[in-house]
Structure formats: C-alpha cells, structure tokens
C-alpha cells in the first residue's frame, strides 16, 4: 500500500531549469523584435532623432564658427561635454529609449499582435528578456554610433592634425570610449524604466515627461534625492565635468565602481517587476 500512498501525494520532483530552451526562445524573440525595431514604420522617428545631434555638427563641419571657444582646440572637450550632456544624453538618448522600449509592448498592443507571443509556450519573463535585449541592442547600436559620430564631427573637421593626436596619442580615445560607455549605461537604465512604463501605463507619455523633468531638475535636488535618478550616476562617470550653474546643489559624484553596478542592479530589479507584472497581464485590445 505504501506505493499507492506515494501516488496520492507524490513528492514534487524538482525539474532542472530549461536554460537552453529559454535561450533559444530569447534568440527567436530577439530576432523578430530587432527587425521590427530597425525596419518597422516606427523606426523612422528613431532615425530622425538619432540624426538630430549629428545635423548641426555636420552643418558646422565645413567652417569654424565665430567665437573664441571655437578657435581654441583645448575648449573642444568642454563644448562636447555640454553638447553631450544637454542634447545627446538628456534629450536624444532619453526620448530615443522612451520610443524604443515603450513600443516593445505598447506597440504590439496598439498593433494587436501581442497575443501571438502570449499564445506561445514561453515563460513571460523570457518574453520580457527577449524584448528588452532587442531594445537594448537597437538603442546601443543607434545611440553609441551617434555619440561617436558627433564627437568625431566636432573635433576632426576643424582641427584635423590636433584631433588625430588627441584621439590616437592623447586622452581622446579614452574620452570617446567613456562617452560611448555612458550612452550604453543610459540605454540600460532608461530602457528598463521605459519598458515597465510601456507595460503599466496606457498613456506612457505622462510618466516619461515626469521622469524627463526629474532628470533635468536633478541639479537642484538635495544630494540624497539626486541618487534616485539615472542622470546622477551617468554624470558621475563623465570624463569632463560640466558646471550645472550657480543654483546647482553640489553633491559628491558616485564612484564608477558603485555607479555602474547600482545602475545594473536597479535595472535587474525593474525587469523583475516587469516579469512579475506580465505574468498577470490580460489581452484586451478593445479596452486599449
């Protein structure tokens, strides 16, 4: 009888996690999404956004603008730091990530095609990871190349020989790689935030604008609140510190060894929340 009793309440056997299956599924989701991100009709706005900081620099390339700072090569790292912080990072990368990551789920809901994923034998967390990676790779490719092009477009046309020395023998290459790294971290951090926003909010524009305001007003916040933002950690990593004006509340920059893991840890937490949320998500296109 003992065998029968065992059949009534079998001891649950712990199955090993199917990592190879999950990996195949992430790859398949990634492939579908990356094509959509780069070639879908929504990508046009993304390309326009990526061209936004390149355009003015390309226009200025043939001639050196008037103004003392433009004649002095040593000022260029400051010009780029301001241009990068104000336009590239806070505006283009921010809104670019918002567009890419919010559309990962929201776009499928608007197109009424999210159910194809929901009707597949895919763990919903795996779906989140697949989509997130596709957004991440898209944003990194677009915005990192944009960052590099902008930096080269600023330096090279006006001071070709100095720039060559600056990038090959001087601190230029390390600055270029640092800016590219900051762009990648921004994509990681903002990406996770906007992915969740796209899942939680029917109109994700409002939380995006709230975060935009928060990130811009970061210089006014007390040191403790500064740490509750992505921009604080990114600013801490910039190779050329920029003054935030006379009203700025000065706070110690977070060292890279804390800033980078913190950003990645918060991203992982946000993705975990997204995974939890999507497990309970229903598909009701009619009410969207």
């Amino acid at each position, binding site marked *: 009888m003992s065998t029968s009793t065992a059949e*009534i309440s079998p001891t649950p056997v712990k199955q090993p996690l199917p990592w190879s299956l999950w990996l195949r599924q992430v790859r398949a989701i990634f492939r*579908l999404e990356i094509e959509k991100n780069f070639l*879908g009709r929504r990508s046009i706005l993304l390309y326009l956004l990526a061209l936004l900081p390149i355009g003015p620099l390309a226009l200025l390339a043939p001639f050196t603008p008037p103004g003392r700072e433009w004649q002095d090569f040593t000022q260029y790292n400051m010009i780029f730091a301001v241009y990068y912080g104000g336009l590239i990072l806070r505006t283009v990368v921010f809104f670019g990530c918002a567009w890419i990551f919010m559309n990962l789920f929201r776009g499928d809901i608007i197109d009424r095609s999210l159910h194809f994923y*929901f*009707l*597949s034998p895919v*763990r919903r967390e795996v779906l989140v990871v697949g989509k997130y990676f596709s957004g991440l790779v898209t944003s990194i490719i677009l915005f990192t190349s944009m960052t590099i092009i902008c930096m080269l477009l600023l330096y090279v046309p006006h001071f070709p020989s100095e720039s060559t020395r600056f990038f090959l023998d001087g601190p230029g290459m390390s600055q270029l790689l640092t800016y590219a790294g900051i762009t990648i971290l921004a994509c990681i951090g903002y990406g996770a935030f906007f992915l969740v926003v796209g899942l939680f909010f029917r109109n994700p524009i409002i939380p995006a604008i709230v975060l935009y305001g928060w990130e811009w007003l970061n210089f006014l916040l007390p040191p403790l609140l500064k740490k509750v933002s992505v921009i604080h950690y990114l600013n801490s990593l910039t190779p050329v510190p920029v003054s935030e004006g006379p009203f700025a509340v000065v706070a110690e920059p977070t060292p890279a060894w804390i800033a980078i893991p913190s950003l990645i840890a918060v991203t992982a937490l946000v993705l975990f929340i997204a995974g939890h949320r999507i497990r309970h998500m229903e598909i009701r296109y009619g009410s969207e």
Partner: protein
Amino acid sequence: MSVTEQKVDEGLDETRNSKSEVRNFIVFNDVSKFYGEILGVNRINLQIAPGITSLVGPNGAGKSTLMNLMTGLLRPSRGHITILGIPTDQPEQLFRKLGYCTQFDSFPRGLTGREFVRSFLLVHGTDRKQADELTTIAMERVSLLDAADRKVAAYSKGMRQRIRLAQAIAHQPAVLILDEPLNGLDPMVRAETIALFRKLAGEGLHLIISSHILHEVDMMSDRVILLNNGYVVAEGNIHGVRDEMEEHPMQILIRCDKPSRLAAQVFDHDHVVEARLHDDRLGLFVKTRDADRFYLLLNRVVAEGEINIESVAPIDDDLSAVYQYLIGSGGGPS
C-alpha cells in the same frame, strides 16, 4: 486485503479515473468573468470531450470571452479552468498542447506567410530544421503553400484567415480553439476547411469553434454550447438538447398519400399536441412531445399497410430551431 485497504484502493482508482478524465477534458469549474461591473460569462461549468464543440450565441453572449479564458488571454474573476489537466495560467505547458486562432486580423509587420508561421515555431523553442518542416506541413494543410513566400500584408482576407489557422495548428496541438474560423473564406475553401476540422477531430483533437453560420455548425459539430448573456443556455449533442426541450414539441413532416386519415389516427395519442395538413394535401405536420413514441406509432401505421408513407423528416430538430427556441431571433447569432 483488509476492508480499509480495499476502500483506500477504490478511492485511489476513483482519483486516478477522475485524474485521467481531467487530463482528457477541457474543464470549466464555476468560472465567471467580469469586466469591472460588466458581466462577461457567469458560473460556467463544463467538461468538454474530444471532437468538435461549437460555441453559438448572439453578439456579446460570451463566446470570445470563453475562448480567451480557455487560452489564458483573460483570467477568470472566479473559478478555474484546466485544459487536459493544465491550468490556463501556465503558458509554458499549455501552449505545447493548445493552438488558438483568434479573431484579431492583425499580424507582426513585414513578414511573409512562411516567416510568420516559422518565427512563432522558433519562439516555441523548436529547432530550425523542424520549424521548416512543420511550417511546410501547416501551410499545406490550409492550402497556402503557393502563397507562402508572399507578404501577409498582401494576402486577401480569406488567406489571412488561413495563415492564422496554419499558425495555430503548426505545432500540432491536441486542442485547437478557433474563433470564427470560416469568416471570409469562399465556399470551396470553407468546405475544405470543414473537412480539415473533421479530420483533426477524427485524429482525437479537441476543436472548439465559434461560428455564426448555424447550418455549418450543425453539419460539423459533435456537440454545441449555446450561450446567451454570459450564461450557458444549453450544451450537448444538438438532438439531445432538442429532445430535452419539452416546452417546444418536436415538429415532424410526414409525406404520405392519406394525410387526413393519418391525422385521425395519430391525434388520439396524448403526446401528439397538433396535427396539421400540408397545403398540397400530401403531407401532415405533427407536433409531438415524445418523438420516440411518435416514431413507434408511425411504425405501427406503416405495418398496417393502409397508408403509404413516403418520407418522415423532423423539421425543427436542428441547431437553427434550438437556437430560435432558446435564444430567439432578437440578437441573431454572431
């Protein structure tokens, strides 16, 4: 073996039987779904066996809600559902066994028919070679192999319907749920598709189909579930359902040479509630509360040899009649 042991054994057998039953059925256990204050479906208890089961009901009856609940796209507000023993909140297991062809006429952009089916097989985790093979089999089954490499966006409505069907059957599920699968198909393809459904049902699959074309539902279904205002009004074999509707006596048309005489003979019986001559005087409409007893009576009449009976046909023993009686013509099926 002691009495106690015997009882335990019997209990175990029962448990095993009910478990194996659950593993072969789609089970709704007191399921309700509310959209805020609005009722989707209420207190649904069903056990659906393999074969073709059709969901019929007017607009807003709850057919799509029921299908979306079965596939986990919606979560029940109360109760629970299992598909072949798998709860609907476990997509990883559920969709290895289940395919759902929804009514949403939308697709991921830019894909050809083949890419569409293949891509989602890859999302299942199928390897590339097998995905290619399964895609070809599925496209062939829905007669879409010739158009496989055209963009889905360029497909006609009927082709889009078929490519969705191909995607739903590509992984060879044991349960197939189809929301209005015959919509937009021309008569030829419709007939082919119905034949495909019958073939799949013959292979032991569960097919749950919603359709608004009652005579087609009647033709292909093993059983129907009639829904109205979120409630199951009737379920089962359509003739069985009809037999149980005692408040609506069965109407039968008997074609014979002496209808008046037949009327006199049958009217004596208490289960016959009405007998009316056909306009051409070569037939008799009879309303009876007990069709079985009436057919026995008719056998006796034939055996006596005085009346030549040409044909006997029930005229309201089909889905349309049952639908009319239970739901009425107000909503019209959707």
